[in-house]
Structures are given as structure tokens and as C-alpha cells.
């Protein structure tokens, strides 16, 4: 028997697998037993309701999903009343994802959703900071720290900060989020990209740019998770291109304590169950007793340099 539980700050999860925000919905309740998940993560909500981006909202490019959805949502009140209460029937911890355009607004929405039935707040800081030229919070260690600090002042719930791969210096932003009081870091959100229709001489997305997700991003985000895990002491939740148990294990080896699967839910709707089963089978096969033992277990001695070869030759 493999112990599949993992500890993320104050919260213990039955297993390390959960959906990425915005890639999950009630529809999956018709497909699989949601109680098997490590946690349930809701789509991001914002202080004001949003209709979302102009159409078209997606284009596929090789192994990637390039989407510009624009966080359509009906605001915090509807979220607490309708969505959070729907998920109370399920046992896994329920994670609300929140975003806001200012530090104050972050604090307010955090307070607004800190209601029974919501166990954790994931902070989507990949959104424009209206106090700083619209540059995303996640690109800016200082803004990140301020936002997370304000949120932790406004809620007693554990706070996870979701970083952006578009920030140049991931470890610094990660440390800022930790300093602000985050209990865990989700690494990471989508990579900004664009696609152009050469014939039409037009962007392929209504929003011009979009977020790239899916398998194609894995090498870059896996590295980011590795780098971040080595620079903070709070747990890292890996998220980027995870489609299989093997991908999930790679993130754990790189230093993640849990993982989120996003785009794969659109392709194989029950993929998270396959990932859980595959991770367990891997541990069993390798004689690893606790899945949490995988965290950071990468043997990352560098390959031999020529000078070392010369000595050993």
C-alpha cells in the first residue's frame, strides 16, 4: 500500500492530484467520482462579473492549447451562493481561485469568499495590476508580496499563490509570495503567446494574445517548478503540461509536493484518475512507500565535465 497523501501547508490532501483553475467544472461530476481527487479547484472569480474575451477564444497549435478566455465569471456572491455550495457535497478540499486589479480589491474579494465550504484560496496574480501600468502582479515581486500580504490579513484560510511563467525571475517572485504569507505556490499559470493566420493577415484569437498551455509548455514550467522549489521553503504545486502520471512524477521529482492538471482534462476528461492510479503504480513498482517521498528526489548531480573526465581517464 502506497501512502498517497500529501501535506500542503495546513492542509492534508488524500493524494497530490487536482485540476488547474479554469479547466474543471461541474460537468465532470457526470464523468467520474470527484471524491477521488486530492482537491477541487474552481475557476478564477473577480470582484466584478466579466463576460470574457472576444471570439474566437481558442486555437490549437501542435501540442498546445492557445486560449484567451478572459475569466468570464459572475462575481464572488454568485460564487459563494451557487458554486461553492454545489461542491460541498464532495469530500476533497475546495479551492477558490481569486483575482483582482488592486491590492485592496484582492483583500476584499478574499474576505468575501472566505465562507464555509471554501477551504483554500488560490491567488491568480497573473492579472494586470491597475495600480502599476497594468503590468501583472506576478511579474513584480513587490506587488506580489503586497497583494499576498493584504489577502492573508483578510482571511484565515490557507493562501496559495499561483505564479506566472512570464515573470523573468521566478525565484524572486516566489520568495516575495512566501514573504507575503503564502502557504504554497502553484507553478505556474499559462505562458503568453499568440498565433497569426498568415493568409488572413489577422491574429487567430479574438483577444490577439492568449495563454499557451498543454504538453508543449512542460520543459519550461518543469524547470520553473524546479527552480522555485529550491528557493522557497513552502510547498510547490506543479502545473504545466501534465497529461500523464509520468509527467506528474517528473514534477514531484523536480520538487513539487502536488500537481494540477489543466488542458488534459479537455482531451481525456478522466485523466486525473489515470494520473493518480499511475503515480501509485509507479511508487509500488519502485518500492516507494509514500508518494511524498518523490518530492525533490531528483538525482541532479551534473554530468561529468571534460576536466573531470580527464582526471578519471
Amino acid at each position, binding site marked *: 500500500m502506497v501512502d498517497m497523501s500529501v501535506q500542503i501547508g495546513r492542509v492534508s490532501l488524500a493524494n497530490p492530484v487536482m485540476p488547474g483553475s*479554469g*479547466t*474543471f*467544472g*461541474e*460537468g*465532470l461530476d*457526470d*464523468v*467520474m*467520482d470527484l471524491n477521488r481527487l486530492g482537491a477541487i479547484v474552481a*475557476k478564477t472569480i473577480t470582484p466584478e462579473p466579466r*463576460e*470574457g474575451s472576444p*471570439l*474566437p*477564444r*481558442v486555437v*490549437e*497549435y*501542435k*501540442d*498546445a*492549447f492557445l*486560449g484567451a*478566455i478572459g475569466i*468570464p465569471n459572475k462575481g464572488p456572491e454568485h460564487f459563494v451562493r451557487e458554486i461553492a455550495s454545489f461542491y460541498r457535497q464532495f469530500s476533497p478540499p475546495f479551492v477558490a481561485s481569486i483575482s483582482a486589479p488592486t491590492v485592496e480589491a484582492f483583500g476584499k474579494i478574499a474576505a468575501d469568499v472566505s465562507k464555509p465550504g471554501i477551504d483554500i484560496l488560490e491567488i491568480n496574480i497573473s492579472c494586470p495590476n491597475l495600480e502599476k501600468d497594468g503590468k501583472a502582479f506576478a511579474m513584480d515581486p513587490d506587488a506580489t508580496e503586497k497583494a499576498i500580504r493584504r489577502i492573508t490579513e483578510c482571511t484565515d484560510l490557507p493562501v496559495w499563490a499561483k505564479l506566472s511563467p512570464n515573470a523573468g525571475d521566478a525565484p524572486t517572485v516566489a520568495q516575495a509570495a512566501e514573504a507575503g504569507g503564502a502557504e504554497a505556490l502553484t507553478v505556474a499559470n499559462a505562458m503568453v503567446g499568440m498565433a497569426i493566420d498568415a493568409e488572413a493577415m489577422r491574429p487567430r484569437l479574438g483577444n490577439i494574445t492568449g495563454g499557451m498551455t*498543454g*504538453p508543449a509548455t512542460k520543459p519550461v514550467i518543469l524547470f520553473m517548478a524546479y527552480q522555485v522549489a529550491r528557493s522557497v521553503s513552502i510547498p510547490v504545486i506543479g502545473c504545466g503540461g501534465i*497529461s*500523464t502520471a509520468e509527467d506528474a512524477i517528473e514534477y514531484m521529482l523536480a520538487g513539487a509536493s502536488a500537481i494540477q492538471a489543466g488542458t488534459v*482534462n*479537455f*482531451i*481525456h*476528461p*478522466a*485523466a486525473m*484518475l*489515470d494520473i493518480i492510479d499511475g503515480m501509485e503504480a509507479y511508487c509500488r513498482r519502485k518500492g516507494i512507500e509514500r508518494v511524498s517521498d518523490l518530492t525533490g528526489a531528483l538525482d541532479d548531480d551534473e554530468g561529468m565535465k571534460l576536466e573531470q573526465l580527464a582526471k578519471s581517464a
Partner: protein
Amino acid sequence: MSEPAPKAAADLERFPVGEMIGTVVENTAVNDGYNHLVLDAPRGAATAKAGQFFHLLCPPTGEHTPFLRRPMSIYRIDRGQGRLEFLYKIVGGGTKALATLKAGDGLNIFGPLGVGFTLEDGWKHVLMVARGVGLATLAPLAELAAERDVRVTAILSARSPEFMMSEEYLRSVGAKVITVNDADGTSNVDDVERTVRGIVEAEGVDLLATCGSNRLLLMLQCLAREYGIAGQVALEQLMGCGIGMCFVCVLPFRTPDGLAYRRVCKDGPVFPIEEALSW
């Protein structure tokens, strides 16, 4: 990505929607550019309803590697033989890949998905007006109506008689079929409108159902309002997840609160005709 064995939920009642492997019985050209796909898929056939769709994982081929699934209306549900049928137009990478499937091959399908057509108790006559591949979507409605002893008249519009599909099939389930086409000039909207008015006024119609043409939709919206008849339209939009999670597939609708986006996959693909915008 190697194909994981889909998790077939043991409990169909509890988990009615699922990923499953259908076995290709037939995948043949109907006419230039359209294929007819018959799948052995007992689990899907058991639960699918008229107007719903499946989300198909088109197989990667040497040339095409479709990443996302592709939505396809169910063209026919054969519960007796446990089969699902699709009628699809070959347009891009996904449908080209689909067209390479041969009898005996497996196809990963996910569904049944979406809100289909509704037949209210007491309705006696359904008038379907379909164009092109829209025929595929309306066909199961004809069969459903037949099961419930509701009379069906179907106006099928196509570019030319060769593109007139499923005429035979519709007649076989008891529909009265009127065909119009561009080649002989019978398909222009004014003529079709005249035909529809004739049927409504002479025979009475409880539901106007349509799919596949913007101009027909506009015309039927007006007539539905004018005559006070219910109308339903099946819409299409590019999709991501197919089950309401990603908000990729939205279209704008007229709602009581003004214009709003709704998800074609989860709130539709069949919508009340008065809410649809022309596109």
C-alpha cells in the same frame, strides 16, 4: 501521448457521460466531401439523445495531429444494435484524420454531451428546415418524433441534388421530405419561406427546428414569432472541453438581461430559436 484506456465508469446511472472506444463499422464517402461514420458503441448508444453530440479524439496520422477533440452531432442512434452514426464534412486536420479510419479501427469518443431537442407533450407536428451538414443534427429529431407519434415534415436544402443526404433515411422513419437546392434555384430563402408558411397555415406546426443556415434561421425566427410557434435551433462553435468547463464555445444570445454569452456545449447545442443571434 500514448492513449490511456478510457476509464469506463462501472456505474452508467451515476456517470452517464464518458470516454469510450467505439469500433468503426463503416466510414464511407456519402458524396464529395462528406463521410458517413458508423460506430459500434453500445454504451454511447444507450444514453444518447436527439440533438446531443459526441466529442471525438481524431486519431493522429502522419500528416495531421489534431490536439483537441472535435464535436460531432449524432446523426443516428441505433439502440438496438448499440451503434452511433455521424455524418461529417471533411474540412480540416481533424476531419481529414477521421476520414482515414477503417472498419475495425477504434475511435475514442466522449459523450453524450449537451442539451438536445425537446419535444413537449401534446405536440403533433414538427417542421424541420435543414441545410448542408445541418441535416445530420436534425435527423435524430425525426426519429424521436416518429417514436412519439409526432408527424415530421423536413425541408432539406443543399447546393445540388448530389449533396442531398439522408433523404432516404428521413423518409424511412416516416418524415415527409421536401428537397430544395441551389442548382435548380428552389432553395432561395423567399421560396422556402413561402413553403413553410404554406405548411404552417395548412397543417399547423408545433415546433420549427433548424440547423446549418444563418439565413434560414433568421427567416424561421420571424415566422416563429409571427405565428407564435416554438422554435429550436442547433448551433455550432469551436470547442475545447465539450462539457462546460473552458468557456471556449460561447456565442452571444438574447437573454432577458440583454446580450450574454452562453456555452454551446453545455447550455446547448440546441437553443430556443428566439434567443439565437444571427452570425
